[in-house]
């Protein structure tokens, strides 16, 4: 079990540390650095604890945490020799980078963010190398992409950093997607995503017909991550990151993730021609182009970036060779490269930090001012160039040996290998010389932004450690790195591990000659290029026209701009009509497609005889519907009345077929909807019939729409008819019918379903109703009517008010009566048609009638409804009933019932469902009234802004706006100034209170009705 603990700690601890660091204050630099360092150190210790003794003896440490075992998705942590080598690099170099960053980062930088990202990246990297499940590996793979994006873009104020980060993310994350697809294919072939199962199924994978697609996809992931040609261009742009990030991500870890993946899958995917050709050509081009371009970089970090690309190409090339010995060399070179490249990045960072520039053209003579750093950088650069007695030399010798061995193979790519290796070595010597000679030698100049001096000793320590490693491994390879390399190679190659010798001196052989030739040739090349380089020309000779960044930008512009725009233009529409037309057509098509296999025959149910009354009702109803459709454009009022006619037909149908509850509700909703729409009509623009409606094109459009509508109607008819002629299947209705009285205590089954059986649904529904009412209210608070509809409408001018005097009195008298009916409907709901919905709507109608007959202003003066209070009370009551059931240990909304004997009044069913229904009643009432009066109030509100109509005889003049709160400026255009119609009275002198305190002030919160006077 301790293994499981160590492994999960190795991944979890960095994440935890990241979280803690992110929460620390920005000025706790020292603490954050200590914390990050401690986390890195502990992670390293965890790896060490796993390593001994199991892995050192060639074993595998494994721990599994079940997640979705059915899908083969378990959290599998697995460490073998290869993973341990990579995790030591991740944690070890991470530790050194933390120490380095402690001194490198300026006090202006947000330190918590830096260390948090760095640690999170470390955790992702650990997760990647310790994954024992392919899906999990891809997950951490994308996490590394994400955190590297955040780290590269750490200096977010710099456009260069942002662009570089975006490019890195685009390239590596797209590769990650390809990798995911490839991994899914692999899992499909093997039947499991478990790494051990996959590693044991090499033959299955290589013989599978899907091998090539899987290979291409997986390699796409690996090559993008490891910055291989043609995806190499993101790495130099990632140099906009702080140097510790470059040292960590772009030398030792992130870019090595691709190498790790190729190595990991080498046993099961390598060994084919496709493997060699894809990896071999990418690796060779990357090796040569990277090294060549590196010579001509003026930025030290740019030089190192291209050199990294070149070295990664070298490793890829080694892995492509399908030879176990090359695999050993690849692992070895991966370690060596991480040590010398990280130290070189750090050295470059020190130079940048102490002199203020990284431009080789400006740097000069630092050997005198920074002697220690100069020595360290020289050793590391020599390792990079492959100078004997340093680690780079040994692995490069192995590389050259391998290329010479492979050159015997028949293909042209094989025979080019030694030449490429020699050329790349010459280039490597040249750019290493440039790095050293350019910065440290030459005359001392005062050209640099800062006077150079040695860095703090602790900042140099990480470089010293790494350079020491280069030297020790270079001089005593077998004694130092030998056992670890052996374990790593064996974990990949198993039985096939070849004999190899880690020695400095293998005798005077061809590889040694080639190394010496490269050293001399590189020095000569550098000498020859002196003149060109010191001229300071930007760009690379011969390759000037190949700019990966420009190509990338063009692709991005094409994809995200031109292509998207074209698609949008061709396929998209912003027009609602087109969208709805498409939707209707697709719906019809979907119905046809779904029905076409079986056709739409009639069922066997015996039809009931046609009733002439219903027939007549529907002749009228159908006529109303069609007429409403015809009139809705120019005659809105007529259309509204016709809509009501159709609604009445529906209502009668409900009554006819034993649905009294529905009929009552439908009737009430019909009333409320009609009034609502009538209130809205007032704000619509006048519409007169145009002669233009006879034009050809609109007519054709209408014909088309007519055909679609007829098709939709016929389809609906056919489907409904086919449904109605079939026996309805035994549903859950029996359950409700049988239990409505015996368990729900009510004889009105529909109501019992609503408030008891499906009480939770109803609770949700009334909540929705409340939300809608509040939304309506909120939208109307900022309502701006069109200028031309602000004035008093024609119908209200003159003596219109007097006509309503008699109805107004009648309605006032009716008010208590209707209210009583509403309460009656509510109370009897459990046993007879009625209930909270109907009762609430009825009470709303009572209020509504007052508005219609008495006018908004009159009602607002005389009656205070508090819709919001009703709504909240209703919701609380309904919810409280449910909670009360929970309080006695029953599930939410369980009901209880009994009958109360009220003597003469009869027996009243008292169920807890009744209380729930009262809640429904209150909310429905509150919501309906809120919507209606919010709209109704608009006319009062806007008329206050409008010119005052001439006083009517016998009536008090309408109140002038009180000088309330200052009015927002945006209300002004709708004010009287905008209304220039002649024949109106003088404009209101005070500010037009279009947005007066009524709607915005606090009192609207509790009433919405009381005026501001």
């Amino acid at each position, binding site marked *: 079990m301790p293994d499981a603990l160590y492994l999960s700690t190795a991944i979890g601890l960095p994440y935890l540390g990241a979280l803690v660091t992110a929460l620390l204050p920005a000025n706790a630099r020292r603490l954050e650095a200590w914390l990050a360092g401690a986390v890195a150190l502990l992670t390293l210790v965890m790896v060490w604890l796993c390593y001994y003794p199991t892995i050192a003896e060639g074993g595998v440490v494994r721990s599994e945490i079940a997640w979705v075992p059915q899908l083969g998705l378990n959290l599998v942590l697995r460490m073998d020799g290869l993973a341990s080598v990579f995790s030591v690099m991740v944690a070890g170099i991470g530790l050194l980078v933390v120490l380095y960053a402690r001194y490198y980062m300026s006090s202006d930088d947000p330190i918590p963010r830096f260390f948090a990202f760095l640690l999170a990246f470390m955790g992702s990297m650990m997760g990647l190398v310790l994954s024992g499940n392919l899906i999990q590996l891809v997950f951490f793979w994308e996490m590394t992409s994400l955190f590297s994006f955040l780290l590269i873009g750490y200096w977010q104020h710099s456009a260069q950093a942002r662009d570089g980060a975006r490019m890195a993310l685009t390239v590596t994350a797209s590769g990650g997607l390809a990798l995911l697809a490839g991994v899914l294919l692999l899992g499909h072939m093997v039947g499991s995503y478990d790494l051990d199962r996959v590693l044991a199924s090499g033959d299955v994978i290589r013989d599978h017909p899907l091998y090539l697609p899987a290979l291409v996809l997986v390699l796409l992931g690996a090559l993008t991550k490891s910055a291989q040609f043609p995806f190499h261009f993101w790495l130099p742009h990632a140099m906009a990151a702080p140097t510790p990030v470059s040292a960590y991500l772009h030398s030792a870890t992130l870019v090595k993730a691709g190498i790790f993946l190729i190595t990991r899958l080498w046993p099961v995917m390598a060994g084919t021609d496709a493997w060699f050709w894809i990896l071999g050509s990418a690796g060779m081009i990357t090796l040569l182009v990277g090294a060549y371009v590196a010579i001509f970089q003026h930025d030290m970090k740019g030089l190192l970036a291209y050199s990294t690309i070149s070295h990664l190409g070298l490793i890829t090339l080694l892995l492509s060779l399908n030879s176990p010995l090359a695999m050993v060399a690849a692992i070895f070179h991966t370690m060596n490269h991480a040590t010398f490249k990280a130290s070189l990045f750090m050295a470059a960072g020190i130079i940048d930090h102490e002199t203020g520039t990284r431009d080789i053209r400006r740097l000069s003579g630092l050997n005198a001012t920074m002697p220690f750093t100069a020595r360290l950088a020289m050793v590391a650069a020599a390792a990079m160039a492959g100078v004997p007695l340093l680690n780079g030399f040994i692995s490069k010798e192995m590389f050259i040996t391998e290329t010479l061995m492979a050159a015997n193979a028949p293909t042209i790519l094989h025979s080019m290998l030694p030449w490429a290796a020699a050329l790349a070595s010459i280039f490597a010597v040249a750019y290493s010389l440039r790095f050293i000679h350019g910065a440290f030698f030459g005359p001392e100049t005062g050209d640099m932004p800062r006077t150079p001096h040695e860095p703090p000793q602790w900042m140099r320590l990480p470089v010293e450690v790494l350079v020491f490693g280069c030297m020790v491994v270079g001089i005593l390879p077998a004694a130092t790195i030998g056992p670890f390399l052996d374990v790593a190679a064996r974990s990949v190659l198993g039985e096939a591990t070849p004999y190899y010798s880690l020695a400095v001196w293998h005798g005077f052989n061809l590889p040694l000659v080639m190394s010496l030739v490269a050293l001399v040739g590189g020095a000569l090349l550098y000498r020859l290029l002196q003149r060109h380089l010191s001229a300071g020309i930007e760009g690379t000779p011969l390759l000037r026209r190949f700019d990966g960044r420009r190509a990338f930008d063009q692709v991005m512009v094409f994809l995200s701009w031109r292509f998207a725009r074209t698609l949008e233009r061709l396929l998209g529409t912003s027009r*609602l*009509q087109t969208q709805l037309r498409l939707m209707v057509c697709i719906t019809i098509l979907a119905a046809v497609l779904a029905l076409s296999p079986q056709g739409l025959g009639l069922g066997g149910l015996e039809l*009931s*005889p046609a009733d002439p009354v219903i*027939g007549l009702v*529907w002749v009228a109803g*159908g006529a109303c*519907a*069609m007429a409403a*459709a015809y009139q*809705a454009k120019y005659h809105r009022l007529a*259309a509204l009345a016709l*809509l009501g006619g159709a*609604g009445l037909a529906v209502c009668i*149908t409900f009554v006819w*077929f*034993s*649905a*009294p*509850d*529905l009929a009552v*509700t439908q009737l009430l909703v019909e009333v409320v*909807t009609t009034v*609502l*729409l009538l209130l809205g009509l007032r*704000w*619509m623009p006048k519409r007169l019939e145009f002669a233009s409606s006879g034009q050809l094109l609109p007519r054709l*459009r209408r014909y088309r729409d007519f055909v*679609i*509508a007829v098709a939709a109607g016929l*389809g*609906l008819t056919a489907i*409904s*008819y086919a*449904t*109605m*002629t079939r026996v*309805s299947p035994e*549903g859950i209705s029996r359950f*409700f*019918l*049988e239990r409505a*009285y015996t368990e729900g205590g009510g*004889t009105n*089954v*529909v109501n019992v*379903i609503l408030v008891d059986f499906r009480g939770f649904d109803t609770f949700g529904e009334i909540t*929705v*109703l409340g939300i*809608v*009412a509040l939304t309506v209210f909120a*939208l109307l608070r*900022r*309502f701006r*009517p*069109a200028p031309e509809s602000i004035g008093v409408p024609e119908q209200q001018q003159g003596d219109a008010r007097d006509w309503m005097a008699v109805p107004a009195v009648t309605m006032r008298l009716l008010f208590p009566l209707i209210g009583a009916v509403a309460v009656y409907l509510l109370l009897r709901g459990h046993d007879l*048609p009625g209930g909270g*919905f109907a009762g609430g709507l009825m009470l709303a109608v009572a209020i509504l009638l007052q508005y219609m007959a008495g006018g908004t202003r009159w009602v607002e003066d005389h009656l205070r409804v508090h819709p919001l209070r009703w709504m909240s009370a209703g919701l609380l009551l309904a919810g409280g009933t449910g909670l009360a059931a929970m309080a006695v240990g029953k599930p939410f909304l369980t009901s209880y019932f009994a009958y109360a004997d009220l003597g003469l009044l009869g027996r009243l069913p008292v169920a807890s469902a009744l209380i729930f229904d009262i809640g429904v009643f209150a909310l429905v009432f509150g919501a*309906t009234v809120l919507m209606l009066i919010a*709209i109704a109030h608009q006319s009062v509100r806007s008329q206050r802004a409008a010119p005052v109509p001439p006083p009517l005889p016998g009536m008090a003049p309408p109140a002038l706006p009180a000088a309330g709160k200052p009015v927002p400026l945006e209300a002004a255009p709708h004010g009287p100034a905008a209304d220039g119609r002649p024949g109106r009275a003088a404009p209101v002198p005070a500010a037009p209170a279009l947005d007066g305190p009524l709607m915005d002030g606090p009192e609207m919160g509790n009433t919405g009705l009381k005026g501001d006077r």
Partner: protein
Amino acid sequence: MELILALSIGVLGGSGVWLLMRPRTFQLIIGLSLLSYAVNLFIFSMGRFPVGRPPVLEPGTMGDPAQYADPLPQSLVLTAIVIGFATTALFLVVMLAARGLTGGDHVDGRRQDR
């Protein structure tokens, strides 16, 4: 009888769909209302159309589905009616706001006569 009701559903639905594709907001509101009638009737038709079956139980008895009207579609339609009212109200307010903001009543917010 079934044919009459199926035809009415078709007429209501067809008129609604026609209005859905019209350019004026008010037409859209009427269309949605008509369409919701059609849909409510369709849901209601799941209980079929038996005449003369009581919807309310005799007190103290268990209901028999063969004797009583089907309560399930009824309760579904009842909630649908109320929610339909709410959405109509919401749409009306959005329509008013659009009218105030754009100055017209075209569904795309532009002054166009099509």
